[in-house]
């Protein structure tokens, strides 16, 4: 998985989003140990302080926990992960409906379009 960083938003925020994605999709499984700040920073080609901040924010969200002996681990708390997944899903859905609204679809019509698309794919 590649790191994709745009210049116009804080790098730490983008790093945090991408690590979150990796946790949600199981690239970093629950309860597993995260790579060190140094390794992650080198991999992403970013400043270690920036990566440190991203990981600290991840801890704030409860997605990662620092263990005195084992380093930084992905949480084992399913409810935390599901909460984050839910929040991101809502955001995704809102983006979809807002986009459809800009094309002149109301919610019901947008929903119908979504169903149609599903049938097309199947």
């Amino acid at each position, binding site marked *: 998985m590649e790191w994709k960083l745009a*210049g116009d938003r804080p790098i730490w925020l983008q790093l945090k989003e991408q690590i979150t994605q990796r946790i949600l999709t199981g690239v970093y499984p629950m309860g597993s140990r995260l790579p060190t700040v140094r390794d992650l920073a*080198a991999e992403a*080609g*970013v*400043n*270690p302080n*920036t990566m440190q901040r991203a990981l600290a924010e991840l801890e704030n969200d409860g997605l990662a926990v620092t263990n005195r002996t084992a380093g930084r681990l992905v949480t084992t708390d399913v409810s935390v992960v599901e909460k984050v997944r839910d929040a991101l899903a809502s955001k995704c859905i809102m983006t979809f409906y807002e986009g459809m609204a800009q094309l002149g679809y109301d919610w019901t019509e947008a929903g119908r379009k979504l169903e149609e698309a599903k049938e097309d794919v199947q």
Partner: protein
Amino acid sequence: MSNELVHIANLNKNYSVVKALDDVSLDLEPGHIIGLLGPNGSGKTTLIKILNGLLRPDSGTVVIDGEAPGPHTKSVVSYLPDRPYFADWMKIGNIFDLFEDFYTDFDRPRAEYMCQTLHIPIDMKMKNMSKGTKEKSQLILTMSRKAKLYLLDEPIAGVDPAARDFIMDTILSNYNPEGSVLISTHLISDIEQVLDQAVFIRNGHVILHDSTDNIREREGKSVDELFREMFRMTY
């Protein structure tokens, strides 16, 4: 004293009638990679040369690791000059010998390893090196010291993009929380992600010193874009 690595106060330097540095004050903490960003002739090289003791300021204070530039600061500062300074007849291996004599913090195995990675033969003479290879050799020497402060004057100007990536990797893998790296350049987009602080310098004045993420958050644009905007040439 606080934990500043570099303390600069009211620094002035004139070249005859030109004011190269005009009342510069700047504090740098350990553990950062800082971009010293300004257009040509803005005072970047002058500031770096004063920090490593090659130039004396007309007035003002410079303190590095608790002392004024001198023998102690030279032992903790590793400097990459804006142009290579080694004699043509020298082989890079000769220069390793020299560095081993001069600097107790020179890590020879590391230097040799980097030469291998970049395919630079240890017995190649400076005379026979291309401009880019010379610059890479110089960078290897600079980064092979375990210094507290690295002063890199235009480290990426003359090398190809692949080598540029290698240089960035080298700087990142060499990073330690007690040391700081000050990189002067005007090629910002290439190194922007590696920087966590930026210092903008114009006509010998420091006009901005902030974390790069603060800049992106506040301005909604990359440091490179902000730089281009602030330093746009007007006719």
